[in-house]
């Protein structure tokens, strides 16, 4: 066991404690960035002038009229930018653009004494646009060959031989929906300039160091003249990894030009129309099974909807490709990836970071094909699990595959799946107008940033002479409980009660060059750094205590506020006082980098992940045959968090991730105006009244979560595992349960395609397709009704599945079977 993962007895880590800010949250005392406005004197408020066009050249910008509005102080335009007019790291995100690239893009900003003045001033700015042709959908981009960034291929073996040798080959495609983050706190920044011209930006950002870097880039100042602080975020989910930078830069620019604090807070509509979301994807695939229904080959092309700029689309795509296998061994694989350039918001990080979209492809394949193979979908999944000794398509050995089996079997027992399957069958036989489905799905998710460099972190731990401890680290708190875990790590390593340790907000002048708090890695990385800092301090204090106790430093232990050894002890405070008197350094900076990673992003080969997180979920739904409406009756989860650092926090992440995933897959329905009318490219669902996230009414009636036992993870801080993202993908169980329930309206063994998101309407179309399938049909003939074509002959014949197949005109979520029935008949 590594020293990093070794956990002392009675450790503070592992205790189920509430969030460190819980009492502040529930009393309204917790401060968020925009709560600072009323606590700051002389603040100016910013309002954007947003493009009404999906793509247009800005031919003229006349700002004079804005200054006629009472209270308008300054209009910020490209001419004001002293540095680089770009809000990104790829050089493709002009902050003040001369070509608007999506509806809602800010072309300039107005600063006012009040928000009202800024709003009215922005309305007075005159902008002339020359509209240009715009691309809105992925399918349009495919047809126009409009891509951006690299086009990687992940391959192993010979996929054509594999398909040729397969007993059964299926082909199909799927459109995967995007998702709005809908963090409850919209983007916010407030910038001040001090007497020496140094800039201090408080920002709701997951990546303070990068926010700092972009602010410096725009202002043409060195990084040491810019400090970024994040108090806490009202949710992030990846949406505040890249997107805050430009907003912080505008606030900072305004502050430097006016000498006054400048505040930007997007309202919900601005946030939804200006900032990026989860990437929608289009996937096209061919898959081969052998006679035992084992996967033998997969050929797929994944096209992500990148929006107007590259943003994080390349690493998102890489993670999608690296997760198309999910938990399954597929000998021959070829997955092509590409990023569509569309005139929409710049799609970005969102919990799972491409992983969910990649995994959805294989889970959709298995869900659609199981009935065609004549096998229970749970058995199909279970049969194809990785086993020890196998590696992923990118060449990383799959460690601990048996954990997935343990989780699966444990869940089947806990959730009594055998009996409940029989009950579902009885219910379905007795109820013509309602059907139930019960599905179980696995998750295997790689932990670490794919980009190896980001897997580093820093911390700063101070021990004051009274013995109290203050920790800083590079991670940000967005509700995920990172700060809670870091307090527990520090208290554990220092052998102190939790209340002796305090944590200060994340600031770039405390810990520099930090990575984004992202990729689920916050606790792994920062926990390693905090622990490293604490170990330096305890190392020095052990020397001090050893001389006081007359023993060797290696015998000194730190626990319960006592520094002990040789049958004697000193209090922590005594040792700290001694150390100070002896001129021993009482603070330390810690550093951590994840060992053992290597990744070739060109070859798409290597071992990019420290480990895999595993989980299994079982979900039972009931679907109404009249409407397609459904209820989630019961969800049971067994999830692998290693040895939990903080069980209450971890269970919260699992439940919250699951519900957010279920929202993505069933309810949350981003709609863009795809018409050729004057509002082409407009986000039609740009508010909470049109974009619906799960509410209490979607809560499963029974919802149990168990942490996988005997799950110690060697080489990770106190034996734990990352938990932020993986549980989101447990929600595939909801989608597959809905599919099975919809299919139950049709003849036995009927296969259905289910659109994403599986709204009541989408489920109703799936029910209708099931009902329309003839009872007497034998399996292969039903293939096209599921949006799947069967290929038992020449795989290359599938090439007539053109990727640029146009979308059907009529209902946007018409059953895909109708379109595929024309182009893909059984072969």
């Amino acid at each position, binding site marked *: 066991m590594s020293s990093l993962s070794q956990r002392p007895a009675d450790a503070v880590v592992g205790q189920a404690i509430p969030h460190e800010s819980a009492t502040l949250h*529930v009393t309204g005392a917790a401060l968020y960035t925009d709560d600072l406005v009323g606590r700051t004197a002389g603040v100016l408020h910013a309002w954007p002038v947003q493009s009404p066009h999906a793509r247009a050249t800005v031919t003229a910008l006349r700002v004079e009229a804005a200054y006629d509005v009472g209270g308008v102080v300054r209009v910020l335009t490209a001419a004001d930018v002293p540095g680089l007019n770009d809000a990104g790291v790829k050089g493709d995100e002009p902050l003040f653009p001369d070509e608007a690239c999506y509806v809602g893009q800010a072309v300039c900003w107005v600063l006012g004494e009040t928000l009202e003045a800024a709003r009215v001033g922005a309305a007075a700015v005159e902008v002339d646009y020359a509209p240009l042709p715009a691309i809105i959908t992925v399918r349009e981009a495919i047809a126009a060959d409009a891509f951006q960034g690299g086009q990687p291929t992940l391959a192993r073996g010979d996929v054509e031989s594999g398909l040729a040798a397969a007993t059964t080959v299926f082909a199909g495609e799927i459109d995967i929906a995007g998702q709005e983050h809908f963090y409850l706190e919209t983007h916010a920044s407030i910038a001040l300039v001090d007497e020496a011209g140094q800039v201090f930006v408080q920002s709701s950002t997951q990546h303070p160091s990068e926010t700092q870097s972009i602010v410096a880039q725009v202002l043409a100042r060195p990084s040491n003249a810019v400090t970024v602080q994040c108090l806490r975020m*009202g949710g*992030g989910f990846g949406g505040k990894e890249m997107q805050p930078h430009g907003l912080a830069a505008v606030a900072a620019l305004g502050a430097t030009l006016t000498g006054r604090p400048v505040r930007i807070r997007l309202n919900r509509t601005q946030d939804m129309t200006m900032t990026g979301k989860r990437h929608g994807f289009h996937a096209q695939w061919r898959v081969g099974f052998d006679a035992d229904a084992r996967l033998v080959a997969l050929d797929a092309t994944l096209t992500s909807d990148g929006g107007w700029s590259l943003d994080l689309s390349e690493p998102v795509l890489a993670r999608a490709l690296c997760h198309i296998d999910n938990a399954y061994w597929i000998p021959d694989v070829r997955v092509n990836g590409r990023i569509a350039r569309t005139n929409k918001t710049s799609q970005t990080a969102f919990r799972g970071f491409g992983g969910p979209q990649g995994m959805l492809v294989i889970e959709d394949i298995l869900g659609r094909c199981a009935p065609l193979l004549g096998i229970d979908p749970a058995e199909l999944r279970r049969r194809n699990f990785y086993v020890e000794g196998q590696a992923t398509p990118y060449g990383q050995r799959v460690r601990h595959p048996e954990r997935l089996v343990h989780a699966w079997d444990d869940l089947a027992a806990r959730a009594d799946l055998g009996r409940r399957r029989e009950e579902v069958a009885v219910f379905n036989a007795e109820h013509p107008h309602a059907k139930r489905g019960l599905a179980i799905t696995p998750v295997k998710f790689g932990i670490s940033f794919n980009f190896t460099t980001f897997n580093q972190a820093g911390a700063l731990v101070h021990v004051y002479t009274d013995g109290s401890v203050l920790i800083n680290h590079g991670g940000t708190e967005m509700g995920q409980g990172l700060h809670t875990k870091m307090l527990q790590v520090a208290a554990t390593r220092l052998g102190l009660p939790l209340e002796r340790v305090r944590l200060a907000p994340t600031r770039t002048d405390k810990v520099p060059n930090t990575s984004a708090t992202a990729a689920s890695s916050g606790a792994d990385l920062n926990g390693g750094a905090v622990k490293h800092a604490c170990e330096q301090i305890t190392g020095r204090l052990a020397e001090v205590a050893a001389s006081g106790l007359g023993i060797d430093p290696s015998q000194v232990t730190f626990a319960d506020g006592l520094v002990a050894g040789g049958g004697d002890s000193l209090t922590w405070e005594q040792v700290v006082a001694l150390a100070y008197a002896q001129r021993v350094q009482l603070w330390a900076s810690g550093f951590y980098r994840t060992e053992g990673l290597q990744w070739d992003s060109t070859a798409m080969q290597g071992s990019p992940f420290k480990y895999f997180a595993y989980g299994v979920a079982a979900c039972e739904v009931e679907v109404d045959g009249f409407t397609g*409406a*459904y209820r989630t009756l019961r969800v049971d989860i067994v999830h692998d968090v290693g040895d939990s650092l903080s069980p209450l926090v971890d269970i*919260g992440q699992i439940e919250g991730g699951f519900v957010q995933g279920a929202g993505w897959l069933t309810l949350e329905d981003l709609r863009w105006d795809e018409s050729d009318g004057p509002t082409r490219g407009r986000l039609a669902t740009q508010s*909470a009244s049109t974009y619906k996230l799960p509410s209490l009414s979607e809560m499963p009636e029974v919802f149990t979560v168990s942490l996988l036992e005997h799950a110690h993870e060697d080489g990770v801080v106190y034996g734990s595992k990352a938990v932020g993202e993986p549980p989101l993908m447990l929600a595939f169980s909801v989608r597959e349960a809905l599919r099975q329930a919809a299919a139950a309206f049709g003849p036995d063994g009927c296969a259905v395609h289910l659109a994403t998101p599986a709204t009541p309407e989408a489920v109703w179309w799936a029910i209708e397709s099931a009902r329309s399938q003839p009872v007497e049909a034998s399996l292969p003939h039903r293939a096209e009704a599921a949006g799947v074509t069967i290929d038992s002959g020449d795989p290359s014949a599938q090439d007539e599945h053109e990727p640029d197949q146009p979308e059907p005109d009529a*209902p946007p979520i018409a059953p895909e079977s109708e379109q595929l029935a024309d182009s893909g008949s059984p072969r």
Partner: protein
Amino acid sequence: MSSRMPSATVNGTPLGFEGVSGATNALDWLRSKGLTGAKEGCAEGECGACAVLVARPSPTDDATTEWTAVNACLVPAASLDGQEVVTVEGLGSPDDLHPVQREMAVRGGSQCGFCTPGFVCSLAAEYYRADRTDAGCDAHALSGNLCRCTGYRPIRDAADALGMPSGDDPLGRRRDAPAPDAVPTRLVGATGSYARAADLADAFALLAEHPEAVLVAGSTDWGVEVNLRGARPPFVIAIDRVAELRMLDDDDDAVVVGAALTLSEVERRLDGRVPLLAELLPQFASRLIRNGATLGGNLATASPIGDAAPVLLALDAEVVLASSGGERTLPISEFFTGYRTTVRRPDELIRAVRIPLPLSPVTAFTKIAKRRFDDISGVAVACALEVEDGSVTRARIGLGGVAATPIRAFATEQSLEGHPWSELTVHAAAEVLRGEGTPIDDLRASAAYRRAMLGSALLRLYADHAQPTTTEGARA
């Protein structure tokens, strides 16, 4: 006109309305006073992060007070003149948590914490609800609050763990006295003024003086116009506390519901008297919205997707319009004239909605939406039928979401009336119903699905009333 300075009592302290105009919402005003616990999450009453408690007359006993949770982002600040408000800061402090706050904190009910103050206020309103007899919580109490982090399980557990207020709980004891009276506020603001009508005569006088004024009751629709679409009316007249608009009469001929009763008040005071309304109201927006929204407001905004109209159409209800010149009563089927337009003249108010008796016994309300709580209908269908001796003797069907206005499904009604209550009749009528109106494709639903759902609503009604054993479970 009142000469007193407008002010409200917030957490026991009087706060003034300096700089407030008719368009200033209560949330911005509270936050400007340093009370930043309430948050803006959406500014349209969908997320509940801004929820606060207001002392209102109890729907069940006028002499007592009910702590009523409302969306501060929708309520005009000026509407709180003379009222008592409690925000999350007023419930407890980190060192002295309120029981609701304690349950939320210890159970992991907060993650990022941004929605939490709103949940706490909604839960506190439920905690103090006088007719809550048992510990625990009505799930609908939280239907207007969104959380993006927790997945709700710990919040539901916190709600289920609520005990009853102790005898010395100050907010609990405050309930025993009457709520503050409405104040005839006159507030002149830089970007718009606000007046609260003292009574019906005052309302008519204000209307005569300010014919351009916007009439508001709960402001649940109007607040969205202000916050999201920049509406800045020169004059707002509040009529939500006008006594003549807050009557509820139930006699032999009709149930008459005052236009300015909130939907929560209607729901609790009717207490199932009109089954179709009882079926509708829990599905109408959220508790936070129903605590402000009124039947009068829902009809006056005349949205084609408002949920009250289809039900009132099926009930054959009448709208009572009042002006200084007198009253007129007309069938609701004649009330709507086009997209968001009605026959109401600028000098008129909706005083009441009259539901004639007896009620038809076979009724159903079907709302098609993506989410079960707090969503807007893609389609809404309300049916009220009388079946005698195996035949349909009377049919009234109201539809929302299939035309520019809410409509009656006259052709479908005719295809039912006088025919046997049979599968044959119903299937034929469902086919007719699918052809009613002119549904469109939009973000909520496709036209094809809307049409299909019209038919489904009738088939479901028949399945429930002719073959009661078929399905119970999967009601949307």
